[in-house]
């Protein structure tokens, strides 16, 4: 099952760099990250790549493989034809630090703007009571491993660097939706989602959802409901409050 593959890997520091070709051994069951590691160990010791868990749990190894945004540790080599070149490039939306490693600090900066969870002041730890069906909506979003592939893919910032100032990207907007749907959160973040995080830039194309390795329904379950609630702002301030304290159906 061992064969020799042709890898084309983007190498460079900062914005400067180019694709370089490697011929490298591939064994049965391997993923792209294994092959990158083999290049590192045997040919290019200083090849920069981020990784941690090697099991799709930490969201470190995001890159673009044959142009598709993916986790390198979850992309099996048997999904490619033997012999066809495999091209690995860094995520396109974020500045490159080196080789396959990008600077994703933008996501942390935007994330820091979202006001934290705020439970009722008189509710003591240990006294929280929530039903499973009420936490499930936010739990879906908390599966997020912060790989930032969604934001990397979103056309509002991909190739539109000028929008970065105004648009926080799907990951951070989903965090806002998550807090909004938390049964015991008391803050209203709708105006900030619209005005500061740029929810309006999203035109629900679902490209983010397509690349999410956790299969989170970012657009349908987070962004669209958030947009609807922002729309409610204009005419029905009480409805939001009602939404927070009642059990909500999937599409209200």
């Amino acid at each position, binding site marked *: 099952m061992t064969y020799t593959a042709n890898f084309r890997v983007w190498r460079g520091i900062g914005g400067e760099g180019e694709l370089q070709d490697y011929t490298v051994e591939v064994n049965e069951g391997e993923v792209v990250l294994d092959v990158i590691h083999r290049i590192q160990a045997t040919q290019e*010791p200083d090849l920069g790549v981020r990784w941690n868990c090697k099991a799709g749990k930490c969201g*470190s190894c995001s890159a673009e493989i044959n142009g598709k945004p993916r986790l390198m540790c979850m992309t*099996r080599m048997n999904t490619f034809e033997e012999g066809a070149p495999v091209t690995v490039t860094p995520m396109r939306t974020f500045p490159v*630090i*080196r080789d396959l490693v990008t600077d994703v600090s933008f996501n942390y900066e935007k*994330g*820091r703007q979202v006001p934290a969870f705020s439970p009722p002041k008189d509710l003591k730890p240990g006294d929280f009571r929530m039903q499973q069906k009420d936490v499930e909506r936010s739990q879906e979003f908390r599966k997020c*491993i912060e790989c930032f592939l969604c934001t990397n893919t979103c056309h509002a910032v991909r190739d539109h660097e000028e929008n970065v100032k105004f648009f926080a990207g799907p990951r951070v907007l989903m965090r806002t939706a998550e807090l909004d749907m938390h049964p015991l959160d008391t803050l209203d973040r709708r105006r900030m989602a619209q005005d500061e995080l740029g929810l309006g830039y999203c035109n629900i194309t679902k490209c983010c959802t397509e690349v999410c390795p956790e299969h989170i329904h970012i657009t349908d379950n987070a962004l669209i409901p958030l947009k609807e609630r922002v729309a409610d702002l204009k005419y029905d301030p009480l409805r939001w409050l009602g939404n927070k304290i009642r059990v909500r159906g999937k599409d209200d």
Partner: protein
Amino acid sequence: MSQITKLQFDVIVVGAGGAGLRAAIAAREAGKKTAILSKSLFGKAHTVMAEGGIAASMGNVNSNDNWKVHFCDTMRGGKFLNHYRMAELHAKEAPDRVWELEAWGALFDRTPDGKISQRNFGGHEYPRLAHVGDRTGLEMIRTLQQRVVALQQQDKAEFGDYDAMIQVFAETSVSHVFVSGEGADRKVSGAFAYARGTGDFIVFEAPSVILATGGIGKSFKVTSNSWEYTGDGHSMALISGGSLVNMEFVQFHPTGMVWPLSVKGILVTESVRGDGGVLTNSEGRRFMFDYIPDVFKAQYAKTEEEADRWYTDPDNNKRPPELLPRDEVARAINTEVKAGRGSPHGGVFLDVSKRLPADVIRAKLPSMWHQFKELADVDITLEPMEVGPTCHYVMGGIEVDPDTQQAVGVKGLYAAGESSGGMHGSNRLGGNSLSDLLVFGKRAGDAAAEYASAAGPVTLSDAEIAAAETAAMAPFSNAGGENPYAIQQELQQMMNDYVGIIRTEDELKQALVEIEKFKERAARVGVKGTRQYNPAWHIALDLPHQLVVSECIARAALGREESRGGHTRDDFAKMSPEWRQVNLICYAEGTGVRVEKQALPTIPQELVSLFDSSELSKYMTQAELDSIAQGTA
């Protein structure tokens, strides 16, 4: 000397896993200016990978549970080698630490009455693990990360700067901890770090340093641990004048993936067994029934029928032997495979598909389903998994004061989480790590803050800084030298072969010979290229830590002539009551490691009386039992 940034803090936390973040939160809440440093990005420490849950005796699912039962389970699991005081504090404080997470936004799975749900796990008498599906570690790290952000938002409101009181330095590795003074005056003065992205050096001047650097598993070939686990904290504590305890005890988790080879070692969570998964060999036999040791005979089912009834009626039946402590299960699997009754790829079978409906499996074990489907083409709702032991956790760690987590021998140095030792004795129960991180992370943060107030600011001399810089730059002056990847891989193979799950005197001695050769090679290691995100350089700097820690494990393993928990000697197969009274402590000496025996503290009467004397008699010497009996008389 190139440009080096110098920063002043009260408390430096090395590590952004559960322990480090909880410590940093405590230090900041105590009003101290705190820095958090980590090798990987914020929110991606090893803790993110924890699956099963957090052990805390909240009693939400079975109200018979309380801290005393949790304490007893922990001591039993550790085969009574645990530091009793740590096990006591841990059992008492874990529930508060979990509830606190909920108040910071964690969304655990719920019971029907709306409380935090708790699941069964090996060695825990009652359902005790708070969890979120099988991604509990992710929930925990995200919650702590978001708590840090919440504090930063408060600081932004008060001081106009998010980073005023608590600042995160992600992808910033510490290569050296500064200490000064000798003997009783030995104390910390800061840390030397390099930013991985730029290769720039940063010097942190601080009176308190908390090591929360996690484990050592990257020194073994088959491991569930990532590149981060090179034992940096263990090694830096030792070199700074601290000591390590219990280093011979390494936990091999019974169920790692065995196929495909490239994912060999990746963890299959114990929840699979807690939720009904059974282990069988190639003959289809549920072999764990053949491996229930005498000390556990009273607590485990003898027949498959009783074991099966336990899942629905735990109060009237004994638990299945698949849920024995990890060391027992790992050894059993090892024996089955060696006896030729293994699965095609050298493991055994673990099956939930015949016991739970597919949708329940996908709901309870979503990431396991995902992991097997995507990495091994196996659908666990339809077919069994193949699993085998994998290096998972180190019980041994930095020797600390149990109440403050201050490292023995160095003032201002603290350790928490997997990098500290004593809490788990010879074997850790599943779920007891995440709770350990929270309980002792908080304690370390509190104590480090208090010490920083008393000690006041510190400054470092140019000479100290220059020496740390020279050491960090050394691999670049050897451009044609040894390949760091090759040394690391060979070390991993050697540790697996000679210091693995079953050990013998000859192999351990051989390991020590090999380690000396590795040390010589590591001294000649060379890297080329620039300092920006250069993984070869990073590994070159991790290697000395791996070697120190590997030597500690091998020496302590050679010293302990018995088998207990995560230390199995083929040539001393029995557990010995005399050895239970002894800890092995590692100290740095010359270019190597010295091991000394140290008496275990005596368990006070009120705690030891929680156990039956018949149970104690399996672990203790007659003299100990007599003095316990006199105490109660």
